[in-house]
């Protein structure tokens, strides 16, 4: 019932306003024309329930038409209005659509990456795996003549650093993974030794030097350690690739598994 009251409200107001405006008009010669437009407005308001039923939003259409009139009107700004033609509008529309498509592809890629990560974590027990998915528009394999559909163009799985360390031997501690690590290296903080000057100074200095020099035997043992790491990583990569291939129906060539250091384990 509320639409009826609002409709009546609007109708009464438009009629009142039309009567008022007719009085405001300056001369008789304009009056006939102004009265025509005003009566059309009254008619539009009377028909507004039917219009909204049959046609949709009439006021929006009116607004668009008015704006078009404003833009194309006048003697002087017609030349400026000309380049703002159909081609430019269409080009703008295409650009906007492409931007929206890129954004939706990005969102979809993030979503897929999240699902893949969950699957890997669920089936192999690997936490902290970083999955990056790249989507691209391509022809639909099921309907070659149809529209382009988003396809997964590549999947990159980065294994977490703990995995490479724990998979190998733990003998080397933090230092063992350093030789095979990638460009970003954060050296573990050396234990801080405060030595008081005095009698025990020499002994403590020796201790410090031995703990600092601990990297020498560690690096020697890291040779065998990294081999073990690489073996287990290769196994993990194989299972991950199989998993993704089976679950997502992907070409195995698209899947790339990287170790923590950034080196490609298997692709």
């Amino acid at each position: 019932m509320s639409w009826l009251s609002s409709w009546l409200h609007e109708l009464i107001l438009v009629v009142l306003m039309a009567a008022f405006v007719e009085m405001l008009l300056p001369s008789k010669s304009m009056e006939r024309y102004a009265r025509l437009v005003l009566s059309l407005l009254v008619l539009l308001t009377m028909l507004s329930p039917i219009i909204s039923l049959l046609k949709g939003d009439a006021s929006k259409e009116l607004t668009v038409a008015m704006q078009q009139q404003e833009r194309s009107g006048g003697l002087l700004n017609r030349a400026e209005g000309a380049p703002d033609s159909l081609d430019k509008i269409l080009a703008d529309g295409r650009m906007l659509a492409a931007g929206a498509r890129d954004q939706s592809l990005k969102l979809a890629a993030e979503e897929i990456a999240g699902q893949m990560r969950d699957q890997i974590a669920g089936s192999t027990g690997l936490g902290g795996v970083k999955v990056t998915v790249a989507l691209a528009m391509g022809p639909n394999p099921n309907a070659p003549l149809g529209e382009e559909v988003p396809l997964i163009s590549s999947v990159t799985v980065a294994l977490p650093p703990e995995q490479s360390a724990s998979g190998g031997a733990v003998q080397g501690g933090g230092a063992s993974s350093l030789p095979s690590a990638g460009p970003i290296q954060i050296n573990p903080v050396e234990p801080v030794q405060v030595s008081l000057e005095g009698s025990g100074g020499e002994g403590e200095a020796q201790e410090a030097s031995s703990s600092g020099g601990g990297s020498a035997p560690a690096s020697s043992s890291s040779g065998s350690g990294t081999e073990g790491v690489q073996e287990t990583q290769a196994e993990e990569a194989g299972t991950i690739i199989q998993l993704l291939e089976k679950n997502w129906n992907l070409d195995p060539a698209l899947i790339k598994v990287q170790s923590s250091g950034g080196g490609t384990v298997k692709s």
Partner: protein
Amino acid sequence: MEIIQIVGIGILATVLILVLKEQKPVFAFLLTTAAGILIFLFLIGKIGTILGTLERVAESSGMEMIHIKTVFKIIGISYIAEFGAQIVRDAGQESIASKIELAGKVLIMVLAVPIISIIIETVMKLLPA
């Protein structure tokens, strides 16, 4: 009290124009235009008050803004066209004045085109195909 001011300006301008017309008809025309613009400027604030009230009422009652906009455009076009036509008519150019009036009428009719098209489309949809 503004009406006294406006009538005073009008009478003063008329007397001056009558005097000036004998000597310099061109300046008499300029004075006519100036007096007309002055009176119009006096009135424009009042018209603004009326239109502002209309707009506020319409806004508060949830009327479509595009209707109000159309009505305001009609008022504006008719005032400006009328004013210009009268100035030109005072200068003795009756034909140009009627052209200005014609332009005003056409522009008002152009405002009706989107409304007419919407109404006609709706009616056509109502009719059985």
